[in-house]
Every structure is written in structure tokens, then in C-alpha cells.
């Protein structure tokens, strides 16, 4: 049996080694989510051919590998989104961090406070990344203690993706014939009733199973009331505040009245919107490009696609947002050549910030934002306020743990009818124990 198993194994080993490209001068590892599409875009280096987050970042890497003069090879490791941070922290905890990693701005404090990421200010100056070109909100998002800790890549936030035809049909239009969005919770419910009555379609489609979307909507509504879920100064959770109760109440009212389907997951919600079964899809900036492309398809049920900033229901403009940023994890054995290679790649990414913005995300460079090609992208004029009303949690640690527990608890109010007060009380308790450590440091 030994021989029987060993022989093919040896042959496979030979095959595997043969298939590995010869070691380049400098190989750096890139750790990212956005999905895996290395097969689809195996040898594509033409950015114009790339579509969607995965395609664009993959082609950017391909292009860099093909064109850089320093013999740098970026080896992408794409990790499925749901386990990305588990993997990243496992790698960092295991002392085998990647050379470059993508991250959300909200996660950065965890790493920055522990000294797990390389400070980049000086390096950016060296390789020529112009920090002053970052829009202020983006720059602040990656700054702490007077230092820059990451390359901001985008600003993404929630949008309301709208099927204009259904709004017209329901008569929910303003004087210009454009979809009219609600300005208060009561109006939202009225509109939803009208939509149901006149078109027979649901007003909202929102991924509600195993998805953070409703929680992001909830956060937006909390902030619109002038509240928050944490007190950044005292590092205390405020999950049982009246703003929090109200935002959760509204979500549940919508589900209960059938204005949104509580059983939809991401795919199903998106499908409901694309097939004209729902008037509004609550999803992020990353969907714009995809839905616009869908609407151009003559067979699509969605014909008149428009985008809207998050409507203000409570008086204070706010919408949940976050950023994708690139960090260089601190290595236990620093390697100057790898560091330089990684910085070269960051510079390359920054130079191509516009291409990333094609996904629908907002670019972070003032020069790109103001550029003509940016303005030429479809629908961008429809959500200009988002950049200014984008809100995130205060820069505290453990945001991801907080969000995870919040998502779990909130989801269970509509999925298993957990009493809302109980869900918030549970969240409050769990959040407090998380924040306790944040206070202690």
C-alpha cells in the first residue's frame, strides 16, 4: 500500500513543483476578499475588460505583475468574505501575516492599537503617494496618533437602489416625475402601503438572513435620530437607547407588514429587485455598476434603474459607510525588499483609484473625484450627497465583534421573533463585555 500511495503522490509532487513559476526577484503576498475570479481573468491585463470588484482588483494585480519593472510578483490569496477576518487574524496571530492585506476602516483600530500594521506616512512620501490628495474623510479614516496607517481605497456606503418604473406606477413621484422617497418613518410606511396597493409589489428588498444589511440600515437610522450605539468617550454601549429601539422597531414593522421579505438572503433580495418584484433594494455602492449593466439588458425586468442617497427619515442626514483600505501587516522578520515591493504595489493601486471607483464605490482621491472620467460614470450624479453624509462608528476597537453580535441579535428579532427588548438587552450586555477590554487598555 505504501508504494501504491507514494508513487502517485511523488508524481503529483513533481507536477506541482513543475507548475510553480520560477521564483521571481520579489514575491509578495496579497490577502484579500472580493471573491475569487483568477480563472475567469487568468491572463487579462486590460482594465477595460474587468467588471465588478473581483474582476477589477484581479486585473489590477495581473496588470501590475505584467508591467512592473522590478520583477515583483504579487501573489493573490483570495479569501471568501465570510471568513476573511478569521483568516487574516489567524495569519497575524500565527505570526505569518501576508505582506499586504485589504481591510475595512472599521477594523483598522484593532490592528493599529496593537502595533500590527506598518506606519505608512514616511513610506508614502518616499514612493510618491500624495496623502494630501485623499479626501479628508478618507484620510482621517486611516489616521491615528498623527500617523497614516493604511492606503484608503474607497468610501462605500448604503444606497437605495430604485426601480423607477414601479415608483411611477405607484404614483410615488415628485413634480419632475422622479421617484419620491420618504422623509419620515410614517411616510415610509405610507409609501410602502401605496406601493403594495397600486403595484402589488413589495416596497423594499433587503438581504435579511445571515447578512449585515439590515443592521447597517438600523445604524443609519440611529444616527439620523442623533443617537449612536457606542459612546466613544466613555467606551460604553448605548444599545438600549430610545434611538436604538426606534430604529429596530421600524425595521420590524416593515417586515411584519410584508414590505420586506424577512427570508431573503443576499442573492434572493437582489433577485427580487432585478426581477421587478421590489421597488427599492437596500444595498451598497458596490451594486451600482452591476445593476446598471443589468438594466441595459433588454431582457431584464428592471428597466429604469436609478440610485438614491439614503433618505433622511429622522432629521439628521447620515448613512452607514465604511472604507476598503490596504495595510502592510508588521512582519516578525522585516524584509526591506518586500516592503519596498509592497509599497510599489500600493502606489500602483492608488494610481488606479479611478478604476476601483468604477465598481460604484466612491474614490478617495480628490483629484479622481473631480475628474471628468469620474463624472462620466453612470448614475454617479444620483448619489452625490453620500460622500458628505457618510458616517461610521467612532474609531474604537472590536467594531467587528460588535457588529457581529449586533447582526446576530437584530436578525433574530425578525427571523425567530425574539422580543426586540431582549435582543437589545443581550446586545448591550455582550457589547459591554467587549468594550470593557477596550476601556482597560
Amino acid at each position: 500500500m505504501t508504494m501504491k500511495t507514494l508513487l502517485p503522490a511523488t508524481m503529483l509532487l513533481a507536477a506541482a513543483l513543475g507548475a510553480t513559476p520560477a521564483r521571481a526577484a520579489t514575491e509578495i503576498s496579497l490577502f484579500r476578499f472580493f471573491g475569487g475570479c483568477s480563472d475567469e481573468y487568468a491572463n487579462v491585463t486590460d482594465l477595460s475588460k474587468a467588471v465588478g470588484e473581483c474582476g477589477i482588483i484581479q486585473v489590477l494585480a495581473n496588470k501590475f505583475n505584467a508591467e512592473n519593472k522590478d520583477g515583483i510578483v504579487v501573489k493573490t490569496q483570495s479569501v471568501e468574505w465570510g471568513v476573511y477576518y478569521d483568516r487574516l487574524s489567524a495569519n497575524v496571530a500565527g505570526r505569518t501575516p501576508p505582506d499586504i492585506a485589504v481591510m475595512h476602516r472599521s477594523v483598522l483600530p484593532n490592528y493599529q492599537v496593537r502595533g500590527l500594521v506598518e506606519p505608512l506616512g514616511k513610506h508614502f512620501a518616499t514612493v510618491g503617494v500624495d496623502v494630501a490628495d485623499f479626501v479628508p474623510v478618507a484620510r482621517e479614516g486611516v489616521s491615528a496618533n498623527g500617523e497614516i496607517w493604511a492606503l484608503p481605497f474607497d468610501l462605500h456606503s448604503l444606497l437605495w437602489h430604485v426601480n423607477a418604473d414601479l415608483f411611477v406606477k405607484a404614483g410615488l413621484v415628485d413634480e419632475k416625475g422622479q421617484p419620491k422617497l420618504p422623509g419620515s418613518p410614517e411616510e415610509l410606511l405610507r409609501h410602502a402601503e401605496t406601493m403594495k396597493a397600486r403595484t402589488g409589489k413589495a416596497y423594499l428588498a433587503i438581504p435579511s438572513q445571515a447578512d449585515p444589511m439590515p443592521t447597517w440600515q438600523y445604524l443609519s437610522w440611529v444616527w439620523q435620530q442623533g443617537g449612536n450605539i457606542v459612546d466613544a468617550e466613555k467606551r460604553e454601549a448605548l444599545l438600549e437607547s430610545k434611538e436604538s429601539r426606534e430604529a429596530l422597531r421600524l425595521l420590524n414593522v416593515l417586515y411584519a407588514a410584508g414590505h420586506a421579505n424577512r427570508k431573503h438572503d443576499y442573492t434572493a433580495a437582489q433577485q427580487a429587485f432585478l426581477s421587478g418584484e421590489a421597488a427599492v433594494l437596500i444595498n451598497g455602492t458596490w451594486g451600482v455598476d452591476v445593476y446598471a449593466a443589468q438594466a441595459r439588458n433588454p431582457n431584464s425586468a428592471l428597466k429604469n434603474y436609478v440610485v438614491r442617497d439614503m433618505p433622511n427619515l429622522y432629521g439628521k442626514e447620515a448613512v452607514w459607510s465604511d472604507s476598503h483600505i490596504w495595510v502592510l501587516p508588521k512582519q516578525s522578520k522585516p524584509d526591506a525588499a518586500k516592503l519596498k515591493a509592497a509599497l510599489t504595489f500600493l502606489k500602483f493601486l492608488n494610481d488606479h483609484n479611478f478604476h476601483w471607483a468604477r465598481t460604484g464605490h466612491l474614490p478617495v482621491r480628490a483629484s479622481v473625484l473631480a475628474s471628468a472620467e469620474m463624472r462620466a460614470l453612470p448614475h454617479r450624479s444620483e448619489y452625490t450627497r453620500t460622500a458628505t453624509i457618510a458616517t461610521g462608528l467612532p474609531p474604537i476597537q472590536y467594531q467587528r465583534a460588535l457588529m457581529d453580535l449586533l447582526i446576530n441579535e437584530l436578525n433574530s428579532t425578525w427571523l425567530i421573533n425574539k422580543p426586540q427588548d431582549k435582543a437589545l438587552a443581550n446586545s448591550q450586555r455582550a457589547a459591554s463585555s467587549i468594550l470593557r477590554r477596550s476601556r482597560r487598555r
Partner: protein
Amino acid sequence: MNRTFGDRLILVLVIGAAFVWMMPMLWVLSLSLRPNEELVRSTAGILPWPKTLEHFATLLRVSLTPRWLLNSVIVAFGMTALTLLLSSLAGYAFARIDFPGRRAVFLLVMAGLMIPEQAILVPLHAMLADWEMHNTYFSLIAPRLAGPMGVFLMTQFFKAVPRELEEAAELDNASRLKIFWSVMLPLSRPALTTLGIFTFLFAWNDFLWPVVTATQPEMYTLSVGLGSLQGNFAMSEGLGFLMASAVFASAPMVILYVVFQRYIVQGITLTSGK
């Protein structure tokens, strides 16, 4: 004994159940042999196949699967060989050498049977992180050598070997090591085979520890690698590919099972301490 109607009925029912039992496996095998374009349309039916081997070709060509296979082979063989060595050495000492503190040490070791792997997962990770040893074959193998089950089995086995054999060897001027190596080890072939197969199965299928310690795809074992593919497969276009990975990962076990079925079934009674 006459086959009664009842016996026949039971047999028919069990055959039906076995067919249902095998369905998932056969279906997955069938999916792995059908082109993706067809699978997008329909996944129904089991026949006709095989239609294509493209998924397996892709598997070997573009993915890391061969590398994972290699890792699994190294880990499984390494763990098996070392477990056999350590367990038989220790088992021999416990069964046959009368040294002070034997009883206490044996109890201490057997107490380890009570410690589930999950209970030490986190500290073990912290420890190997301190050593900067994650993502190595060492980290995949070494912590799995500490389990006392093999020692227990080998102790039981060696205790059952007639003492005279060893005494004869002692009279034949054999040293302890010589007795162990030339007499006891060859004698324990059946026990070693059983323990070896079980260790191999365990190593091959191990998930919890490898998923924690192997964080870089190059160091995944097949089991972990397959797990990493699973995340978004419901939407995946490459369903056939995914199923081919599953078939690929389990094929060595199926072969092992077919060849060693007798030992495996025997071994179960052994491992249960009967």
C-alpha cells in the same frame, strides 16, 4: 437455517436503505463527471456518466489541490509513522518494563484521554504562535502525536504478548532495544496495522487543528482546502469542479477502506477498549 419470509423482507428493506445511503456519494461522483454548462441547467439524475474528466484535469492543472494532496500525504504518513513509533515505545515500557513510578506515569498519561482537543486548541495555537511555527509540517503533525490512545492500545497489546517470548530473547542475549525491535515490534504487526490505519484515517480527515494552524493555502491539507472552497459554492459556477475536489479528496480513503476494511472493522472494537 431456512430463510423465512421475515428474513427476506428485512433484506429487501436494507438493500433499499443501502441504495438511499449511497445516493449522495453516487450523485456527487456523477456531478463531478458532468460539464458545468450542463450542471447550470440541471443537476438531476445520476446517469449518464462519465461525460467529462475536465474537472479533474482542471483540479490538477490550475488549483492548489495537488499541493494539498501532497501536504495530506506528508502529514498522514508522518503522523502515522511517528505515532506508531512513539506509541509502541511507550506501550512497551508500560507493559513490560518495571520501572519506579510506572503506575503513576501511566495514570497521568491515561488522564490525557479525558482532555478533548478543543480544550487545548486555543493555548496550543498561542504556543505555536510564540514559536513562530504555524504553517509548517511540524505544527500540523507534532501536536497530534501527544494523544494517549495509541499508547493505550499498544500497552494493552504488549501486555497480551506471552512473557516467555521476551524471556527467551533475554536468554538469547538480546538487549531491551533489541527485544523491542526484533521480537516485540514484528509481533505487534496486527496491532500496529490497526493503529496505523486509524491514525492515517484520522490524520487524513483531521480538520479542527489544521484549520487553525494552516492559514496559508500552500500549507492546507486536502480537508482544510476543501473546506475553504465551500464558502460560496451555492452560487458557484464551478459546481462540477467542487464536486471533483470532493471526489479527489476522498478517493485515497476509499481505496484504503477497500483494501483494509477488515482491519478497520476490527480496529473499531479495539479502539473502543473492549
